[in-house]
């Protein structure tokens, strides 16, 4: 029995780390959804592209400088972030802006096409083989009593927490952050205040690409495998966002963590003890999602939308 409990505890921590990544992807979904009511189905692919770009930087630096040092990873991260900023800006320019007056449905379809195109492009450029990403922390672990935690997991959780705090600060305390909220609530009124709505929207896409890239960089070493199907993991962040209540930032984060923990535990200890769970572990997050939607259709943090007329 104690074995089961230590197993569960250990996997919970690993699950929280995975969940933090889901939370970041869900945060990307939520940002765009809140601002423009578009569900960006390419969010997972943005993450995949980010992971590839980072891998490219790391390997280039290693091949030119030899042994990887801490600096290799820091410089690669900086390069990836710059790429993400430009990429997000470009996506807003080619997807969001030209289609501004189209029905939301058309823009959503465009994001689905974008996801397929990105997957194909990456496969063409990087080749169809799976790559082996290098973790800056190797196989390093901490251990507390019987529980072993990898440094990578700790780093993932730490980065996610810092990012979320930064976003929270930005949204609630800065002029542009509040303007972003205002624009998502009422773009017309925002225009009348002199808020440059177009610029705010491109900022939203830039942020969204940024969190996607960072989640890709964090996720690749955790999966210890990098290929173009990584984007499908983005779809798992979708139930996370819905679970939290689509459109709520706090909800996206909590929903992501819950999904990560459920998934890790069901794959690990639970399926070791109860074999049938292994059989259903791919669909387990979706079952949880449906259950939540049946009990609380607006998600855990969702507010019931009552429109005042």
């Amino acid at each position, binding site marked *: 029995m104690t074995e089961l409990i230590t197993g569960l505890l250990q996997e919970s921590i690993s699950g929280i780390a995975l969940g933090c990544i889901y939370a970041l992807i869900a945060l990307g979904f939520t940002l765009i959804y809140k601002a423009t009511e578009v569900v960006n189905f390419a969010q997972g692919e943005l993450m995949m592209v980010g992971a590839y770009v980072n891998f490219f930087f790391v390997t280039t630096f290693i091949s030119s400088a030899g042994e990887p040092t801490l600096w290799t990873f820091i410089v690669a991260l900086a390069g990836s972030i710059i790429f993400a900023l430009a990429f997000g800006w470009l996506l807003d320019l080619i997807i969001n802006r030209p289609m501004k007056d189209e029905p939301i449905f058309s823009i959503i379809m465009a994001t689905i096409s974008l996801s397929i195109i990105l997957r194909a492009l990456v496969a063409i450029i990087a080749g169809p083989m799976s790559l082996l990403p290098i973790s800056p922390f190797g196989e390093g672990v901490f251990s507390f009593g019987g529980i072993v935690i990898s440094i990578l997991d700790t780093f993932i959780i730490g980065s996610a927490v810092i990012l979320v705090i930064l976003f929270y600060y930005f949204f609630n305390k800065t002029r542009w952050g509040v303007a972003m909220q*205002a624009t998502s609530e*009422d773009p017309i*009124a925002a225009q*009348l*205040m002199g*808020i440059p709505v177009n610029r705010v929207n491109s900022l939203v896409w830039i942020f969204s690409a940024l969190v996607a890239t960072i989640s890709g960089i964090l996720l690749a070493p955790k999966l210890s495998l990098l290929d173009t199907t990584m984007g499908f993991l983005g779809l798992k962040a979708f139930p996370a966002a819905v679970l939290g209540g689509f459109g709520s930032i706090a909800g996206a984060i909590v929903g992501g963590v819950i999904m990560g923990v459920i998934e890790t535990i069901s794959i690990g200890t639970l399926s070791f003890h109860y074999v049938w769970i292994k059989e259903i572990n791919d669909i387990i997050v979706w079952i949880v999602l449906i259950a939540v939607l049946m009990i609380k259709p607006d998600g855990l943090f969702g507010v019931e939308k009552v429109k005042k007329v």
Partner: protein
Amino acid sequence: MLKMVGVETYYGKVKALHGVSLNVNEGQLVTILGANGAGKTTILKTISGLVEPECGTIHFDNKRIDNKNPEEIVAMGISHVPEWRRIFPELTVYENLLMGGFLIKNKDLLQERMEESFQHFPILKKRQTQIAGTMSGGEQQMLAISRALMLKPKLLLLDEPSLGLSPLLVQDIFNTIKELHKSGVTILLVEQNVNHALKIADYGYVLTTGKIFLSGTYEELLDEEKVREQYLGEGKYVRRSKLWSGR
């Protein structure tokens, strides 16, 4: 100060304004009256740049503004309080005012303006941290007006400020508008509430189906039976005394 000449605006293929011309002079309170769907709101939207006119010109302070976007127009000194107030319902009162002053880069000036609007409407100071959407209709209207005043506009466009308010609050709102006007703000007011609007206005335009139908001062307009006909809808209203004039 504001001069509209022959403005025609379309929504898709539907023509909403058929060549509207009007003037607002500095320091005036001008009102646009008209039934539902006459195009009153469209005039304001065209001035503030939310819709682009197909033809005609709009000049503000001798500068042409009909080809500018809303951000540029608000920066030039025209603030628009839209129909149904459109405050940001999930932001706090403070944040709403902050957004009203989005274009003010100087923090001290922003704070100063904030204090001024709290002086104008003490209720807003008390409600600073409240989520704006939970306030009453009257308070939301006060907020919408002070949000627009954050930039100290030269011209204030007010779109049906009395909409959906109880009669008591309507009186309050009109008093507020009157005071604003006295303090020197030039106002273009769109209203359905003819009596209230004409009482405080210097000049009025009556709009029917996208055209200016009549214009004049309070006395002139009040005298025009036509105004009443247009307003009270179908049917012709005849003065009682005239009923007997045939005898």
